[in-house]
């Protein structure tokens, strides 16, 4: 894994404990044993370690059990529509690059209905952190196949078993050009916290896939199954080599393993940086005289 990064100057910083980031006002929602609790724990720890000012943090989600996460976080937050957390977060961040923006949501939310937005978050290098709470099932709607469900899964709308090759969020994100890609078992809050922290500190689009069991509707991919399949990456893995990262993923898949840790990280200008540069280039500022623009329309 790479050396610890310097926190970005843009974070408004404070000194708070993980529990200070927990919003206690929200009544519990998740089932007992749900992996999403682990994601929350990891996030709260990461926030505390960075010391993000909750007033300058925006937590954004779509719809799903996982997408309830922002309710449990002390921050500004948006609980948006199924699949739309990514573009909404893009708007928040581009309009106010001083805010730290974290997206969290499910495998269905992110890669089924929201799948069309994912490539563009990554290739535009939107400086936000996306945490996928990947339980290989639709939880909130009570157990249908998600695009990461195992091929053989019998579920509500596939009573005779599924028929589709599951997708791999990590491989997708490497292809899409995400500049920070990591993966962990949600139950490993330590690794989760570390990846989230570094992802947030990374300037650019960071994507963290957290494998999170759904005891209520996914009997195949239990916590135990996930934990056993998760393998920490070799220390020798070169996080700057895209093809190597892809190969790791392809190989692990063949072997039924899930590679965890930081898979890929590269620096590329984030979109807000490029936009700021453009504004500077055209001499733009809030008080630019509108009449200079209007004059261009004189006949």
């Amino acid at each position, binding site marked *: 894994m790479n050396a610890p990064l310097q926190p970005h100057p843009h974070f408004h910083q404070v000194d708070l404990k993980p529990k200070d980031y927990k919003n206690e006002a929200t009544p519990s929602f998740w089932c007992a044993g749900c992996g999403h609790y682990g994601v929350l724990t990891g996030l709260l720890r990461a926030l505390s370690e960075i010391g993000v000012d909750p007033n300058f943090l925006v937590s954004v989600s779509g719809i799903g059990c996982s997408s309830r996460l922002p309710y449990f976080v002390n921050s*500004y937050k948006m609980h948006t529509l199924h699949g*739309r957390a*990514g*573009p909404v977060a*893009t708007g928040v961040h581009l*309009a106010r690059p001083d805010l730290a923006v974290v997206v969290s949501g499910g495998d269905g939310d992110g890669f089924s209905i929201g799948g069309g937005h994912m490539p563009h978050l990554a290739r535009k290098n939107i400086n936000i952190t996306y945490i996928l709470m990947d339980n290989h099932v639709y939880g909130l709607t009570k157990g249908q196949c998600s695009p990461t469900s195992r091929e053989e899964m019998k579920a509500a709308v596939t009573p005779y078993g599924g028929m589709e090759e599951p997708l791999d969020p990590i491989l997708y994100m490497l292809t899409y050009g995400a500049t920070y890609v990591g993966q962990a078992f949600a139950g490993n809050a330590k690794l989760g916290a570390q990846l989230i922290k570094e992802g947030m500190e990374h300037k650019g689009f960071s994507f963290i896939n957290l494998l999170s069991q759904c005891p209520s509707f996914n009997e195949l991919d239990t916590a135990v199954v996930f934990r056993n399949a998760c393998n920490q990456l070799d220390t020798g893995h070169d996080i700057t080599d895209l093809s190597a990262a892809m190969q790791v993923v392809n190989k692990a898949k063949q072997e039924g393993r899930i590679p965890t840790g930081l898979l890929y990280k590269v620096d590329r200008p984030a979109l807000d940086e490029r*936009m700021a540069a453009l504004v500077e280039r055209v001499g733009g500022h809030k008080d630019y005289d509108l009449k200079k623009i*209007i004059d261009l329309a*004189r*006949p």
Partner: protein
Amino acid sequence: MQGITKNDLIIRIGGEGGEGVISVGDFITQACARAGLDVYTFKTFPAEIKGGYAMYQVRAGTERLYNQGDTFDVLCAFNGEAYNMNKAFLKPGTTIVYDSPSDFTPDIPPGVHAYPIPMTQTAKELNNPRAKNMVAMGALSVLFNIPVESLREVLTTKFSRKGEDVVKGNLAALERGRELASALGKTDPWTIGTPKSKREVIVMSGNNAIGLGALIAGLDFFSAYPITPATEVAIYVAKHLPKRGGTLIQAEDEIASISQVLGASYAGKKAMTSTSGPGLSLMSEMLGMAFMAELPCVVVDVQRGGPSTGLPTKHEQSDLFLAIHGGHGDAGRIVLSVESIQDCIDLTVVAFNLAEKYQCPVLLLSDGSLAFSTQNVPYPNPDNYKLVERKRWNGEGEYQRYKFTGDGISPMADPGTPGGRHIATGLEHDETGLPSYTSANHEAMQDKRFRKLKGVINDVAPTEVDGTGTADLGLIAWGSTIGVVREALQRLRAEGYKVKGFYPKLLNPLPAQQFEDFGASCKRLLLPEVNFQGQLAHFVRAETSLRPESYTICGGMPFTPEMIVNKVKEILA
């Protein structure tokens, strides 16, 4: 159509896309406006990407112009197709200026004035074949008294970027065209009037004017996905928003655009998107979220011919149903529509003000005809526009994002505000934003969200009533049809008809009482609109006691004043 009483002139230029039809139209428009005339232009584009029949109609006059007019007084045909497309309108008294020798020889109907000008040939002789349009323009300037000094100026300004040679070459072609036309004897009465005085004006298309309005309103964030005929809004904003330090992004689709806009709005910024019907359909779900989460946003819909992909480059006013009703589950929105370029500027500012004040989506409807129409408007002084900012929390007490207040408006808190942390959510929620599904809460929250909108009617100028007293027929019109009705009413009144007009710009919530008052002053009502189902008529029937007669067309073109005049006469016969 004859005569002295007419104080405006309509010149239609037609030819192959790429032959400079658009440039000639633009130059004439600019020159007339610069000289102090009123202008109103109208274009149609070929269905093909390149080539195909292009048409540019300039109407210029000394009095205020409200529409593109009935066909034309003067046709300038660059090629045979242009002649063919328009020969049906060559009525006695009209004029044709055409390229000759060329690939076509027009059949000049009796009473039509004809001026053959060797456009192509002259341009070739000048070793400047691309300047064919300048030859034509020179000829037109002589024949119809187009302010030539202004023409030369705009031409020089426009071409100076391309170097002095280009300027000279085009000026030479212009002068040659003038000589050729001067040599012909003028037989028709058509001439552009003498401007009363020079005025401080700008000339803009509807799409650009909306962009300008947004800049004036304090736009911070813009996201859109290209679509005909709305793309130019984005193009204009893309050019100028960075100067104001704002952010523009081309999204992957319209759903992403409106999502980004709502994100930016939550972040405390004035945000908008622009699209056309298909894009608006796609935004339906997210607009419901904007209403539920009470997020200000402005959505411009430049309507085109539908349904579905329909007639993408054609004019129609058929998105009103969608604009008002296009969301599941009792989702409210404010809907405005523009009549003119002036409105495109002013009502865009109003749209932002209403969005900020009422924390909800505001839809601004323009249309395919206005999108590319250019008109002169008085130079807008940005300082004269009153801008509204969302009510922000004053920091006192415990913050509740969705607090029940008398007027239903709850103060917002930008991220970064200490103590103002809250959630924006599409779930039904209590005052703090937490999910709540009790009957009492849902009813109270729906009431709050709709109660807010009651104030809107008082924040928008009262609907204009055109005319006084009791009318035999009252005309209700919206969008660019208003300008057509204005002129039709002038003509009808000149003939002694007792007619009145009513021009709503706020279409939802509908100012029902104003409709009633207008209706009470008219014996009968007519509602012309360019769609199939009579969409505004539907809302008027549903929301008021009035039962206006629908007059609908949907042929991809706006009404002409003449059509309205005839219809009114038929009704009152």
